């Protein structure tokens, strides 16, 4: 029944699942009842599976990791965040993290699906046939997924701080995890994200040193600036200089900057954009 579905159709199904998680979670919160983590996790897992099939189909069609246009970059980032949530987030046992992951994945997938221009053309041979560059790019985008999850825990930290300082603890604030739990998890995610992004930059640098002419300065500047900003945030956090609400706000602002930087980085890449392949069916 599902065998003939196109890549975008699979991604639409995934987006619908994430939206369902968002709607169910919102209804639970509005009713003031504790939502079932198991139900949210099943919905996200099913959405994730469809997402994986859609990206796999796209990857098969383009002959590599699908990172050739804004649509694919947004999809890959949403998929990375969901992967991390399913692998790590579930073990954190943080109430509401599943709901927030659903919200983020829904926003990223639906936004990119709703703007056809983002998927009208795509750059080809962006990795120059070099698997190391492909690994570099996928690691970089995976670190974006980590930072996306970090942005969610940071948002929860901001909300928890606000609820405690303003002494509004009822309603859905009561479902938020404790400050220390959120702080510890945010720190671990920041460390993981910086390590992944560093590995990605090192991988890319090895290639650039061999063939410096192909280096795209805009992309390099944006990427290094973002990496530096996250690394400085980590150093300040570990040094006790950036803490609590300020730390959380920094993580949120940096993730917003990371998302905004995707546009100029994508636009500045060297290979020309060509029409995207027809929607494909996974084999």
């Amino acid at each position, binding site marked *: 029944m599902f065998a003939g579905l196109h890549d975008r159709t699979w991604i639409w199904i995934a987006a619908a699942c994430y939206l369902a998680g968002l709607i169910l979670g919102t209804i639970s919160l509005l009713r003031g*009842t504790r939502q079932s983590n198991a139900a949210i996790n099943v919905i996200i897992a099913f959405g994730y599976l469809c997402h994986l099939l859609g990206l796999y189909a796209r990857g098969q069609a383009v002959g590599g990791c699908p990172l050739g246009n804004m649509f694919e970059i947004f999809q890959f980032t949403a998929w990375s965040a969901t992967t991390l949530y399913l692998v790590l987030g579930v073990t954190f046992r943080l109430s509401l993290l599943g709901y927030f992951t659903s919200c983020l994945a829904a926003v990223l997938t639906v936004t990119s699906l709703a703007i056809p221009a983002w998927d009208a053309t795509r750059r080809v041979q962006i990795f120059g046939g070099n698997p190391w560059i492909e690994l570099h790019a996928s690691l970089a985008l995976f670190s974006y997924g980590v930072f996306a999850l970090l942005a969610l825990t940071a948002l929860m930290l901001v909300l*928890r701080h606000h609820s*405690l*300082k303003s002494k509004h603890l009822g309603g859905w604030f009561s479902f938020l995890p*404790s400050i*220390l*739990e959120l702080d510890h998890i945010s720190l671990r995610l920041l460390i993981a994200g910086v390590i992944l992004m560093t590995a990605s930059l090192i991988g890319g640098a090895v290639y650039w040193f061999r063939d410096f002419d192909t280096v795209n300065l805009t992309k390099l500047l944006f990427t290094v600036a973002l990496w530096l900003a996250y690394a400085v945030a980590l150093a300040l956090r570990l040094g006790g200089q950036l803490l609590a*609400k300020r730390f959380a706000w920094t993580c949120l602002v940096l993730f917003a900057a990371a998302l905004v930087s995707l546009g100029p980085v994508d636009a500045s890449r060297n290979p020309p954009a060509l029409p995207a392949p027809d929607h494909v069916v996974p084999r």
Partner: protein
Amino acid sequence: MSQEAFFVLGATHHTTPLAVRERLSLDADAATRFARQLSELGTVREFTLLNTCNRIEFYGVASDPAAVAQVQAAFCAQQNVDPAEFERFRLHLRGPAALHHLLEVAAGVDSQMVGETEIFGQVKDAYALAQSRGHTGPILNRVFQKTFQAAKHVRSHTAITEGHVSVANVAVDLAQTIFGELGSTRILLLGAGDIGEKTAKAFRSRDAGSLTVASRRLERAMELATALGASAMPFEQRESRLAEFDIVVCSTSAPGTVVSRDAAKAAIQKRPARPLFFIDLALPRDVDAGVAHLQNVFLYNLDDLAKIADENRAAREAELAKCRALLAERAEALWKQIEPRLPAPSHGGAVPSPRA
């Protein structure tokens, strides 16, 4: 007639003043003596005695309509209470109303502190004692088993037990929203007053970490520390050693503040990654109000905690209608099961009104 065979007789906090409840209360020996008397009456086939600080209730299966009057007379005689006075305050229900009452009691719906769970354990203990003495039979065994199921159902399907309603427990809840598990937290109790002690005990009951007591009278601090399994500290060191603690519970009777904003600021600077939580239960307040504006420092005073407790209480009370409807359904179903098995009274007699 079968409605008369199942009854509850007693007195509760709803209608009986504390001074009267004190006179009606049975200690363990008196309860044993009274149970023996009931079993010798011959008109009460099965019974269970529930005796707590807020209620004394006899649940019974009678084979004679005169049984209730006999139980009342025996109880008043033992407690030396005028039967006419007892009748002014008493609770007497029969049939499905008595059954519904038992379900509400076990679920905490009828408690003074709505939704409290201690009563569930007290009902279980009362039943276990009656069962071990052979005072229960097929009717009460079934009734109590179904009562426990119904109480658990209500607790898990409504918000009747959510949110604490005592200031001490609300303070511990707040600490958990900041620190999560309390096992690794270090608590300083400033002042050895009653409310501080209650709060310290609430922390202890939820496995909080180390506890240190400081009072203006060191000997009182040491005394309380010994009682709580804590350590004592000179009161004068409270500000210099503030950074060693995560949670500070203040309840001194000092006329001015005992923790200044500067001291709190210095403390948080020494351990910036860990929040600092002040619970100020004193009047006048012990902690400088400016402390609340410090980064990663949280300050709650008595009014704040009382407000949360009131909100929790209101939320529980808002669930009452839902709980009562659930329990009414269960009571009705249970009554249908036990009614055919109840004994037919051996002779007629006047039965008091359902709720006197």
